[in-house]
């Protein structure tokens, strides 16, 4: 297995693989972002994807979530290709991208409730969950009156309710204050300990114990 | 049957049902007279399939063969009238065929001639007269050289107009 273009700590020695990337190649607008990438993500892993701007971090996350098709290669979820079991995979997936997916015309609580319902979760405790992300008192405020950080909090609130095993998070800490970051990190650790996995990109240093965080480092390529 | 299979079956079944309905509707539509097209005999007897008769003042399309010897052209204007009879293969005419009279004021297409198939758009008046707003020559898919046509006995003279006739429109 050659990974000429990326340094990878997540390896295939784990017993319980959730996601496996096999020969991933991504080409965007005639530029090769990464080529023949192989790695495995198992239950209990927290994987941080690193790299300079334009190295293809977001592209890699989107491919892992099944939103983008790789130019070449395959993703396996529990040893079966993604394409063959889209719905079962989405059952076990929570993906948060750059955009929070919050509608301005709905209140904070309605936004959260819709997001939960869409993914088949109970909406009863939405109000309590909002207090977890420091939005107590903003339940009935229209999202158009809330700040960017608060939008992100609404979308992150789903994490507290989620029963999905695989969390894929693109820059979850953007516009989140220090206390919020601490809380999220604790949640990630708890999720990993409960047999889930977290894949994330961030430019901040995680304050999690170093042995718990595996790193995939993408390099910027000239072509 | 597991739920995944069941769902897939529902999808496939609904697609098949949908396309079946589409096919049925199309077949039904094709049996209807969508473009108001009539043959001369149908002006008298009603449509062959539905028995529907055209009424005076109705816009319609009529298609048929120009009856030989029936073309009357006004000598100093573009007005022309002619009789149409049902198109039939091979081409033949008999006096007992039902005919309708088409009157038209305009330049006829070059393909227009006696015995030729034409299509006219117009309005029905007096039960069997058509005031055409447009006369179009329909060409069949048979092509042959002049010499061969002469042998078979077909010939074609395209309509010609005098200067006076052409100027009468202005």
């Amino acid at each position: 297995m050659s990974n000429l273009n990326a340094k990878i700590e997540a390896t295939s020695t784990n017993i319980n693989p959730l996601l496996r990337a096999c020969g991933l190649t991504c080409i965007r607008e005639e530029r090769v972002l990464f080529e023949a990438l192989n790695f495995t993500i198992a239950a209990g892993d927290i994987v941080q994807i690193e790299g300079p701007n334009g190295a293809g971090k977001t592209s890699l996350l989107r491919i892992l979530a099944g939103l983008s098709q790789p130019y070449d290669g395959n993703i396996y979820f529990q040893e079966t290709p993604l394409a063959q079991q889209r719905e079962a995979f989405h059952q076990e997936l929570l993906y948060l991208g750059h955009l929070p997916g919050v509608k301005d015309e709905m209140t904070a609580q309605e936004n959260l409730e819709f997001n939960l319902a869409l993914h088949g979760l109970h909406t009863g405790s939405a109000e309590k969950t909002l207090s977890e992300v420091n939005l107590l008192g903003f339940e009935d405020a229209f999202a158009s009156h809330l700040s960017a950080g608060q939008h992100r909090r609404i979308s992150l609130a789903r994490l507290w309710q989620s029963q999905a095993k695989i969390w894929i998070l693109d820059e979850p800490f953007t516009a989140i204050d220090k206390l919020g970051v601490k809380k999220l990190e604790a949640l990630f650790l708890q999720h990993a300990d409960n047999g889930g996995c977290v894949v994330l990109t961030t430019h901040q240093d995680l304050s999690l114990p170093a042995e718990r965080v595996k790193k995939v480092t993408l390099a910027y390529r000239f072509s | 049957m597991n739920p995944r299979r069941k769902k897939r079956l529902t999808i496939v079944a609904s697609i098949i049902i949908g396309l079946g309905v589409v096919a049925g509707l199309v077949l039904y539509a094709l049996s209807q007279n969508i473009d108001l097209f009539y043959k001369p005999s149908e002006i008298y007897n009603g449509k062959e399939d539905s028995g529907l008769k055209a009424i005076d003042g109705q816009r319609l399309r009529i298609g048929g063969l120009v009856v030989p010897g029936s073309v009357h052209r006004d000598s100093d204007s573009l007005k022309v009238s002619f009789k149409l009879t049902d198109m039939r293969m091979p081409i033949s005419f008999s006096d007992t065929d039902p005919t309708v009279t088409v009157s038209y004021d305009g330049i006829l297409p070059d393909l227009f001639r006696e015995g030729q198939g034409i299509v006219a758009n117009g309005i029905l008046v007096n039960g069997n007269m058509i005031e055409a707003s447009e006369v179009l020559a329909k060409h069949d898919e048979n092509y042959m050289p002049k010499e061969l046509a002469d042998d078979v006995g077909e010939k074609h003279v395209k309509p010609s107009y005098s200067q006076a006739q052409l100027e009468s429109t202005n």
Partner: protein
Amino acid sequence: MMWKWLHPYANPKTSYHFAGKILPWCTRLAVIFLTIGVTWALLFAPADYQQGDTFRIFYLHVPAAMLSMGIYLGMAIAALSSLVWQLKLADASAAAMAPIGAAFTFIALVTGAAWGKPMWGTWWIWDARLTSELILLFLYLGVIALHNAFEDKSLAGKAAGILALVGVINLPIIKYSVEWWNTLHQGATVSKLGQPSMSADMFWPFLVCFIGFACFVTALICLRFRTEVLNRNSMRPWVRELVANEGKTHAV
């Protein structure tokens, strides 16, 4: 997989060179057939007993109309295989076909109008066949526009492929519109096997013209296909090598 024998041709490099090999032969054949065919059609074919010399438009109009639909069908099949089996080269060939098909549709429409004016008495009528051929032109233009709208060529190919497939419904309408609805347009002449409704000295020049146009289209598809393959693989080593080598020979 039953498609295994296709595998070498699914390689962009092989198919690029394969298209390069066909290209000159098709060009030669097209030049030969079209020269003979057009000369024959214009000078030697007899005039029709009814339509006189306008009949010579037939030799352009019918091949163009047939090819406009044939190319669309080819494009739709390529689009389908690119979407279902993820064949990247099918994508490139669909992209190569669209402008050619649009050109032939345009020719079919213009020659048809120029033929209809003296014979039917009108440049254009809004009947089923003419209208659906016009929609075919619009569909081609839409497909081309989608190809140009996306930066990423493989995404562009997929998007245009979906549109092409949606438009396929138009093909049977064009084909059967003459029989379904009573229109001015004549029925099929050439495809009536067994009893050709055309005399032999009119049919042969048509056949030569048609083969000429078909070779011409194949050659053009090869040429444009090569361009598309280069575009989609511009970061591959073989393309870099190829371009660098050609640059050298040009410099010398």
